[in-house]
């Protein structure tokens, strides 16, 4: 069907997709605020996500203060503690990671990397951001509502989420939380349609799917998954909102609250768990796949070597995306389900380790005998591989039903998922910001500040979460406001908890260095030029930096090669951009 010929000298075939008519902004407002340019929307998404992420960071400080030094701080009572947990988890997973990877990096990188002028539906793209902002505002409003935000835990399990024993259960907290999620999903769907259709229909001439950088593959697959998984959360939120506001019994069983029989009856809390985790598990990979993709590009660029096993990487991304839809019940081993189901879901869960391990091997083999530059993006990429392997290995423990049941309610799980879907993707986000900041602003981030940021964050994250595994193995339960007098909790656990809390404060403070760097380098950073990393992908080949509205000037780029032509033998430089048709490839044998 599609043919690739090395006939460079021949006339260019006619374009398959005609050049698009761009929306031309007329005023400052439509240019920078209500902008339809994907790059501006990306920056808006990223700024909002980082801002709300800082709130979640402060919440984690407050939690750690309570766990490390119980009873010292009067303003943290049990209710407040649960509210901190809930909001920290929900913000980090949905409003920071999902929004930043797909809304932020997706918007910035997809059009540039595939060689398009903009997203295919710019107006819907703009709406997507403003609806996301509305969702964030509704979420923030719950901090100021009577009764405060919900304290139901980020999983929002009914019936406790809508009862008076839970903070915000009978007040505004849970209502605002569910509404915010519903709004978020509507907004995301608008953006998600854009990302998918742009990759399908907006690619430049010559950009076949197998020439796409892995970043685009990761974001693309994650978006498809998100579009199919978020409806589950949507349905669950709407149904719980009905239960809370209109007295239905979708999830609510017959229940006595404060000595009073409630109207509800017959509802199934397990039904909610199924719906929630049908979304919740793919969500892990919605966050992880863009990270996988980005890290592949960072490693290849900064090790000056083509990615090892490109095809295998693409297949692994697609297979992981597919498998992640049939593992959801491994979050429900302790819900009392049929043991045969447990066996099925444990098997599928462990099978996912195969494509994931292939990816890790390929990253390591890309580094093998590469010309490794220990730049900041590379440091963060290496940090990602280490933390991801670490968190993935404890995932193999927890994927087994018999190991999961005793560990399920302990800090071990907290340590596991923070390693694998907290620290690891955040490492990639930092690496990606250090990598693409020069393209976004035209200036480099400060190297010295970046080094401080990396080492404190990386070592600090280990000092936080490594001891936490031990705390969990000893049997310290999670979700507890304070441990009190428990025979099995040794003195060492309390000491460790205090240590972890101090580390959390330090790592949090290191992020201020990062934020300062972002702002300071905007004006004072070193001039970057168009392609400071000497990278091959299209976004580095724009005629201007930062790229203006429309990205490419008069003519769209034409793609002649894949995204990883680094250190090609015989080439004059150690990289060949994707849009460069040089024929000098004699004797080139790629490894794979």
């Amino acid at each position, binding site marked *: 069907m599609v043919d690739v010929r*090395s006939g*460079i000298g*021949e006339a260019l075939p006619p374009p398959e997709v005609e050049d698009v008519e761009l929306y031309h902004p007329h005023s400052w407002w439509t240019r920078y605020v209500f902008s339809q340019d994907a790059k501006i929307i990306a920056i808006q998404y990223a700024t909002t996500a980082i801002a709300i992420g800082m709130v979640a960071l402060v919440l984690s400080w407050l939690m750690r203060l309570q766990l490390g030094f119980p009873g010292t701080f009067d303003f943290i009572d049990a209710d407040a503690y649960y509210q901190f947990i809930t909001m920290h988890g929900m913000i980090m997973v949905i409003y920071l990671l999902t929004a930043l990877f797909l809304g932020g990096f997706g918007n910035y990188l997809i059009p540039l990397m595939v060689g398009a002028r903009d997203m295919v539906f710019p107006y819907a793209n703009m709406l997507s951001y403003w609806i996301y902002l509305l969702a964030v505002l509704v979420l923030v409003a719950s901090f100021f509502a009577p009764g405060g935000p919900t304290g139901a835990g980020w999983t929002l399990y009914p019936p406790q989420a809508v009862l008076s024993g839970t903070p915000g259960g009978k007040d505004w907290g849970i209502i605002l939380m569910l509404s915010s999620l519903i709004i978020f999903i509507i907004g995301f769907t608008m953006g998600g349609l854009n990302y998918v259709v742009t990759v399908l229909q907006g690619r430049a001439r*010559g950009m*076949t*799917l197998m020439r796409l950088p892995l970043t685009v593959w990761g974001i693309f697959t994650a978006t498809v998954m998100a579009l199919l998984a978020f409806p589950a959360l949507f349905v669950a939120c709407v149904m719980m909102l009905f239960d809370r506001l209109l007295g239905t019994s*979708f999830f609510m069983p017959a229940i006595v609250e404060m000595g009073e029989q409630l109207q509800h009856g017959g509802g199934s809390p397990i039904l909610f768990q199924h719906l929630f985790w049908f979304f919740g598990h793919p969500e892990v990979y919605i966050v992880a796949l863009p990270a996988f993709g980005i890290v592949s590009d960072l490693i290849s660029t900064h090790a000056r070597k083509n990615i090892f096993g490109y095809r295998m990487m693409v297949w692994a991304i697609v297979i992981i995306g597919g498998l992640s839809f049939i593992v959801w019940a491994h979050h429900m081993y302790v819900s009392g389900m049929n043991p045969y189901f447990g066996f099925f879901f444990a098997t599928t869960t462990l099978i996912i380790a195969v494509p994931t391990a292939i990816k890790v091997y390929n990253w390591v083999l890309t580094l093998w005998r590469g010309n490794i530059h220990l730049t900041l993006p590379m440091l963060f990429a290496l940090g990602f591989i280490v933390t991801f392997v670490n968190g993935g290995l404890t995932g193999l423990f927890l994927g087994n039903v018999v190991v999961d049941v005793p560990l399920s309610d302990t800090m071990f799980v907290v340590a596991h998922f923070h390693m694998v879907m907290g620290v690891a993707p955040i490492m990639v986000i930092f690496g990606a910001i250090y990598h693409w900041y020069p393209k976004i602003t035209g200036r480099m981030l400060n190297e010295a500040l970046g080094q401080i940021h990396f080492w404190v964050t990386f070592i600090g994250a280990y000092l936080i979460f490594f001891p936490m595994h031990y705390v969990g193995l000893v049997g310290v339960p999670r979700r507890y406001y304070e441990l009190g007098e428990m025979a099995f909790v040794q003195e060492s656990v309390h000491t460790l908890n205090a240590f972890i809390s101090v580390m959390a404060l330090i790592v949090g403070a290191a992020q201020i260095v990062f934020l300062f760097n972002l702002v300071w380098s905007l004006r004072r950073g070193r001039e970057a030029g168009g392609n400071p990393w000497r990278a091959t992908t299209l976004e580095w080949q724009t005629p201007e930096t930062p790229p203006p509205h429309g990205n490419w000037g008069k003519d769209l780029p034409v793609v002649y090669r894949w995204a990883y032509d680094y250190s090609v033998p015989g080439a004059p430089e150690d990289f060949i951009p994707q849009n460069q048709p040089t024929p000098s490839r004699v004797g080139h044998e*790629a490894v794979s």
Partner: protein
Amino acid sequence: MSVAVIFLTLVAAVIVWWLARQRLASRPWLEVGHVYDRRSGTPPPAAKIGLGVFLGVVGALFSLAISAYFMRMASSDWGTLPLPGLLWVNTGILAVGSIALHRAKMEAERRNEEATRTALLAALAAGLAFLVGQLFAWRELTAAGYFLAGNPANSFFYLLTGMHGLHIVGGLVALGRLTVRAWSMPLDRRVRLSVELCATYWHFMLFVWLVLFALFSGWASDVVDFCRQLLT
């Protein structure tokens, strides 16, 4: 969750079929040069693909809600809801809207402006009539004492018809804007495309409604029982 899993399997089949045509086994590192596409014809417009993806999302939404319906149905407090006869009329009206839009699409392809406009208006009227009919059906049920919170069967009826109705409202907004455009300007390529997209959306919503109707009337669960018997 079996309904949702079946739906996702269908989506996965489409994705695999599409991926299979993308030369995923090629060796991009050895292939330098121009790409020649030997497939004939122009690629489908982005809006068409966009609608297809969107319908996938809507399908996921309804299949998950239907999964929840079946799971909740298994509990002992599930009552029955007498379906108002009006729903048969509404089904007919929705089908009329679908036929009208199909006709609008055919006429637009023949560049027959007058007939296209009439068909669009007819579809718009049918859509509005369907919504009004659904509201009357709701009123009939509440008047008979079948309230939202009374029984899970009622709750699901109102929830699912409400979700479907909101999708029809969204469709009507798009259809209304299209009708205004079709009256004020000649049938250029973009208007013709919009007519086609509206028709696709309407057919899809008709299909969803038929599934929901089958669900409420109990045929769907008969089918599910039958399948279960076949399996065991």
